[in-house]
């Protein structure tokens, strides 16, 4: 079985006027270590900036982070903008997606309806997201990881 193993590009950023940067700093490092090319747009990234970067780098995935509680407002129309720009990438969103003490299943449904392929809560370990993306992109684990798994 020959799987797709070449390096793939993901666009990462925090949407809206949210400035919580620590999470994406950790995600950038984890995705890079896992062999992805990460384009980190940083915090306070607009929908258009995500779309432009995805086009410019021919990204396989767009990873949106939001912590401050305005994710829903900030993401309205996002998938339209991506489509208009001709982006056909997997879209993930993660972080603290609702204001207050929400029920996560409801939140997940809200964001899936908005068009996201996967929705992660803030307890998500980066490894989970990496595993999910590998699955979605049908990428095999790297040599070293296989070694670790089989050892």
């Amino acid at each position, binding site marked *: 079985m020959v799987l797709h193993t070449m390096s793939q590009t993901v666009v990462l950023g925090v949407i809206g006027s949210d*400035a919580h940067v*620590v999470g994406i700093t950790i995600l950038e*490092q984890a995705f890079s270590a896992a062999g992805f090319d990460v384009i980190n747009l940083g915090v306070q990234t607009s929908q258009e900036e995500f779309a432009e970067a995805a086009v410019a780098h021919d990204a396989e995935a767009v990873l949106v982070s939001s912590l401050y*509680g305005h994710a829903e*407002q900030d993401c309205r129309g996002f998938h339209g903008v991506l489509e208009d720009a001709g982006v056909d990438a997997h879209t993930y969103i993660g972080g*603290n997606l609702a204001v207050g*003490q929400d029920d996560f299943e409801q939140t997940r449904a809200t964001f899936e309806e908005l068009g996201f392929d996967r929705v992660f809560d803030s*307890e998500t370990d980066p490894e989970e997201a990496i595993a999910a993306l590998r699955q979605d992109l049908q990428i095999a684990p790297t040599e070293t990881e296989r070694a670790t798994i089989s050892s």
Partner: protein
Amino acid sequence: MIRDERIPADELRRIDEEIRADWPTGADVDFDEAIAYHESLPASKRFADVLEEATKPLLQPRAGVPCLDDQVELLEYLHGEGKADLLPTTIDSYTRDNEYEKAQEGLENARESGEDTLNGFPAVNHGVEGCRELIEAIDAPIEVRHGTPDARLLAAITFAGGFQSFEGGPISYNIPYTKRHGLEETIEKWQFVDRLAGAYTERGVRINREPFGPLTGTLVPPSIAIAIMLVEGQLAATQGVRSVTLGYGQVGNVVQDVAALNALQKLGDEFLPDEVVVTTVFHEWMGGFPPDEARANGVISLGGMTAAIARPDKVITKSPQEFQGVPTKEANASGLRTTRQVIDMAIEQEIDIDGIAEEQDLIERETRCLTDTILEHGDGDVVRGTIEAFDSGALDVPFAPSDSARGAVLPARDDDGRVRIFEWADLAMDDDIKEIHRARLSRRADTEGRDQSFRMVADDVDAISDGKLIGRPQNAGDV
């Protein structure tokens, strides 16, 4: 290029009129009438006096909801059930971005739906009248807490609205809170805020100003935070502010936290003019919290214990729901009461821990390296110096999202859990100090049998939420 100079009175008036035109509620501000209003407030609502006269650490939570009546109810609850000594009004993110239109939408939305569709109280939209209703409803001093790079209109309205304390500053509400605002720009805007506070002060209404000490909240080395506090305190003093509360966010190592709070007070008294009353505020852990209320209560209590030993003038409490999202009022009050219990049980005890003086000495030396470099960069002017020092990287903040800071400095904990600097980048620091950090970190690396790397930093970022102080490798030796 701007400098650390007081804004002239006519310039103050000009800007004031200009910014008040930004949103309709600005028109309701009348300075003389506002002074009279403040004078009519009872002593129990005079923020600076209440804070400065307290004999033990006062507690203050964070809290803000969009609608006025809900905010009144929330603050009443935190005052009554939470026994908060000082109250906050946390402003929503749209207002912080000066997007009053969006805030208005959110507010109307909230009023109709009954849901909190904004993450705070849009004070500009509520206007002077709305603010005063809040001030009148609550029998305690209330502070405006936000994170706004350009807070001029917010200040004009909330000061006239009866608030007597205002958090933030040009660095502390820029570097951690926004990507694109230049430092020169935010300094200029905050000079206005401070000048306005100074104008009230001149007329006998001492508005308390509180630079935001925790910065990015994530493993910020004490000396970096303190240096920035000193700069913001000085800028405020220049504009006539006479009540300054310098802030510091808990790092979790008791010795380092107590030493840092001591150093903060000492250097604050030394650096700020004599006519300024300097107080300190300690923020309970501002980094990632455990996703578990029981464990979060442990984190909160360690903060209370630290406060009982260091005795800052004020403590900003966290709630056990910090991880999850904006807390319920019950959880918020519970964070207050847990903290109060720990402080009140520990504060009468004589708890003198070894090594605090040495750590304080190190922090002071580090801080002086940074304040010296600022003055050098600015040829004696602290405004220019701050801008240039951030520009050159001689001054930096870890995990800064802002384009105005390099964000190249990386912290890591040493073997005792104290926050040290692992990657110095261009930070201005004496070599012997760097050597001390290096030695401490290499001792940790030895203990863990691994090299110093970003992995260590990432492990430390997660450690407290994972239940530990230090991010040790999961399996000893899994390098």
